[in-house]
């Protein structure tokens, strides 16, 4: 079961949708891990004729099934960092009749969305669907460092070592949730970590 119902939260928190096929001359699909399932669900043979799938398996074995969809282009990347230059290059040459589909973790969707909006696509025109891990990409508001795959709250900043409280306050510009020091007033008084979602 890779779908998760995120609890209702503040306005700043992104709300993810469900991919649906849309009219367009080109289809750019970016997914990681279980995000592949959303692509498998939405793909049609016509769409695949002009589709470019960029997939980061993160240890899963969906790549074979995605390749079997027969997209015009398929790229299997070892990490998001390794794939981002390709995403940027694709966007550089892309035309307005391109539809973008993002699926998988919030970290992947957030960062790919940032590349798309930097390229000038209105964020409301980009489709998303969350699948798989609910771990977050967090930014420490103190040292500005990013910690990936954060599943517990509070957590320790991987850059400066502060104990950070996981907020739902999201930055589109950094594609990350914000982490705030939890024991600033009373150093050492850190509540025990638990999962972000009950």
């Amino acid at each position, binding site marked *: 079961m890779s779908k998760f119902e995120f609890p209702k939260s503040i306005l700043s928190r992104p709300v993810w949708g469900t991919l649906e096929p*849309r*009219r367009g*001359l080109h289809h750019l699909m970016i997914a990681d891990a279980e995000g592949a399932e959303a692509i498998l669900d939405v793909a049609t043979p016509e769409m695949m004729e002009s589709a470019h799938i960029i997939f980061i398996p993160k240890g899963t074995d969906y790549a074979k099934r995605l390749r079997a969809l027969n997209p015009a282009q398929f790229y299997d990347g070892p990490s998001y960092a390794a794939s981002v230059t390709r995403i940027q290059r694709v966007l550089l040459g892309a035309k*307005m*009749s391109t539809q973008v589909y993002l699926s998988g973790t919030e970290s992947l969707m957030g960062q790919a969305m940032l590349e798309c909006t930097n390229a000038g696509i209105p964020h409301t025109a980009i489709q998303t669907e969350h699948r798989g891990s609910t771990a977050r990409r967090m930014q420490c508001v103190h040292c500005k460092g990013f910690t990936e795959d954060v599943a517990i709250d509070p957590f320790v900043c991987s850059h400066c070592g502060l104990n950070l409280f996981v907020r739902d306050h999201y930055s589109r510009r950094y594609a990350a949730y914000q982490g705030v020091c939890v024991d600033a007033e009373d150093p050492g008084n850190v509540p025990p970590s638990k999962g972000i979602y009950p």
Partner: protein
Amino acid sequence: MSGAEKIDVTVTEIVPVNALVKRFKFERRDGGLLPTFSGGAHTVVEMKDGDITRLNPYSLMSDPMDQSAYTISVRRDDEGRGGSLFMHNKVSVGDEMVISYPVNLFSLDLRAKKHLFLAGGIGITPFLSQIKQCERLGDAWELHYACRNAALGSYVDELTAAHPFEAHVYYDDEKQVIALENLLNGQPIGTHVYVCGPKGMITWVRATAEKLGWPREAVHYEEFLAPQPGKPFEVRLAVSNKTIQVGKDESLLEAMERSGVDAPYLCRGGACGQCETRVIDYAGAFIHRDHWLEDDEHASGEKIMPCVSRFEGKTLVLDR
């Protein structure tokens, strides 16, 4: 007082542009500076024609940063209700007039990487100020401008001389047509398209963009909607406790104003939503002409936009 704030101006120049279009220049009567504006903005010009006061919106075509004067271009419409005829035949240099602060319902989306302008006929005017803004900001732009023929192509020579690579002109008489599908297909990601012209052109561009998968957010349009003349009708204004007659050449909004009712408005062209009025009761048919209400709202008989829409029938009671 409804509408945007007013500015007292003097007409300082009137230039015939071609057989149908005249350009008017306004300067502040107190010698001060006019506000800057953003490309695509319009001003509402007050025309005192005998007992009738018309308030018509016109796109500002001057440089948005030029505070010394505003210019507008008015196309003569012999079939219209007389606003453009008044400007053409009764206004002379030195006349004192009142115009509104600039209002923009057709502004550039500054997130765009490129602006693609599509103009039809007098729909060129908002683009003239937008082009000046783009040139100042160093934004990429391209114009495709369709007009009837060379003699009626307002500002064609200026545009093609100053921007030989950006401005493309098409003459209907020579059967030249914008190759819209190719044009839209070839646009790089981050392009926004803006269209201003006759209704048919706007519908064509919106439908083609949608078919090609353009996001709705990247398609902008402004239609020059003037209130159309129609059969006279009677309206009951419940809040003001007045029964008024709407004449054949005036809009419902103008009739309310003539009767001393301070009704809200901004664009006077069916686009901004400011004048939306609740219908309390009616027996008859609405002639909706605005772009503001949704189709189901038009069908519901619960709302009307008095700046452009009319009514035919026995009773109309409004919450105003």
